[in-house]
């Protein structure tokens, strides 16, 4: 084992715990931070501390929010009758960027995966049901990824919601627009074929 100075070893150790960062990149990032001007390094440390202090879950949709209720849930122009259910906050961002969904969201914080100990109770499903109970929702769009777990979660939700008289839809998956068939990976082409529609 290389002998790092102890504080450096600690920083590398913490960085390694982050997703997508292996030992090599942790080391690179740590050296970078070490060489940064002190003000920049402190700004980074403060941002990390602040995100923990100031960001919490929106009490309605469970997206990250600075306030008790997030800006989307508070926005009076949003269509209150459709809720788009996503697995992760980053999925919400992706859909929101398109500007096409004018309804509300609900973030589950994961998908059902019994193998990893993630049962329906571990997700924000109970909260979704309570929310539907108290609102005028007519349609729930399930936007989980087309994986085995994403599909199972969507199915679980639709079994739960349909008896309540709510329309449940699922995002279609297919070829990315503007992309060449040539460059699409096989899984995408296969699913586009499966989900083809009549013209």
């Amino acid at each position, binding site marked *: 084992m290389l002998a790092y100075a102890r504080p450096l070893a600690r920083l590398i150790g913490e960085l390694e715990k982050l997703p997508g960062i292996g030992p090599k990149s942790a080391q690179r990032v740590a050296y970078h931070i070490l060489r940064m001007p002190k003000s920049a390094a402190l700004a980074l440390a403060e941002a990390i501390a602040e995100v923990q202090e100031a960001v919490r879950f929106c009490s309605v949709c469970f997206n990250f929010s600075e306030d008790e209720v997030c800006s989307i849930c508070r926005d009076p122009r949003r269509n209150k009758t459709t809720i788009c259910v996503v697995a992760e906050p980053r999925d919400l961002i992706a859909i929101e960027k398109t500007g096409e969904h004018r309804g509300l969201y609900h973030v589950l914080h994961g998908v059902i995966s019994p*193998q990893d100990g993630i049962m329906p109770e571990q997700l924000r499903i109970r909260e979704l049901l309570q929310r539907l109970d108290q609102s005028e929702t007519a349609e729930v769009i399930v936007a989980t990824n087309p994986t085995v777990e994403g599909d199972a979660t969507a199915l679980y939700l639709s079994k739960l919601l349909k008896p309540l008289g709510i329309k449940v839809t699922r995002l279609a998956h297919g070829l990315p627009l503007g992309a060449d068939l040539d460059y699409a990976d096989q899984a995408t082409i296969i699913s586009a074929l499966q989900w083809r529609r009549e013209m």
Partner: protein
Amino acid sequence: MYIRRLCLAHFRNYELLEIRPSPGLNVLVGENGHGKSNLLEAIYMLATTKSFRATRDTDVIQKGNPDAVAFAEVVFDDGSSCDVEVTVSREDRKSARINGARADRVLDLLGMLNAVFFGALDLRLINGEPSARRRYMDLAIAQTSPKYGRDLAAFRRSLDQRNSVLREMRDNPEYDPGLDVWTDQMTTHGSAVMERRFAFTDELAKLAVKAYAELSGKREKLVVRYEPSLGVEPEPPLPLEKTGGVSSVYLAARVCYDIELARVREIEIRRGTSLIGPHRDDLRLSVDGMEARAFASQGQQRTVVLSLKLAEFEYLEQCVGRSPVMLLDDVMSDLDDDRRSRLLQRVRGKCQTFITCTNLRSFPQEVLSEATVFVVRDGAIETVTS
């Protein structure tokens, strides 16, 4: 299709190797442990991304090196060519290059180079557990259908997830964390797997029976039967227009799967595991009405496995419209002279073939005279004669 150039770097006992095989018969001769099988393994890995020795991928990396690379220039019947490359690394995930560009997934390599391999371990097809026969079906079908590979992966995932749910329910009888949902996922993907296995074994049975008759000089008869754990017998498939675009074999498998699962539901919960489905399928092999595993002689067993491999070869050829590369590891032992020459007869002039042996005497002179012979010695090719 054939391999025009093969290069290895730090692969098993090869430091660096570059050879230009002939489009026809290539004989690799050498003493035990000098690297004949390793060379076939590299070609196989370029075709399937996997090793045929049931070990970890990183085992192919030469001792003391960080990674192993296999590269081949593949030439198709129309004269066009394609470069394929696989890198196995101790540090990183396995990766592939197609025409020099890094592929998003290693699996994208499937379908570029097709190969059929036969080796001593393949006798497990007869003597081994049903899992060996499922593996044979799965690899063969996946080579012709990327969709099958994905259905199979999705089936296995939903099976694992469902087993976790069943264990949970066994230990916690009051609790149901969504068994139905996982049952649905498992039957959706599992029925797609069975559908393809039906179609495959149907074709395969015909081809294997023909190959066996040929190799044995029509003296014996082989029967190959797919035995799904559900016990469904496929009806002849209905035209797709009649079933709303869904295959009738799929529907039949699915209906049967659902019924059977409902029947064993309580037992599955009590045992905490999934009891029926493609993960319990088998392939039954018999020679002259007797189960091969229990009754066939050593030479007959070898002939059965060879027939299955030749059938796989023709199946691949039909599906992809070009001849795969044939990899025969040490096939000549155990076969009598007649079977040997019928085997060589069958591959001669038909496709690119690599055969390993320890002794050239197992080959008839007229076959040797048109073959390219590589002498393999301690991780290097010593001489080439053609």
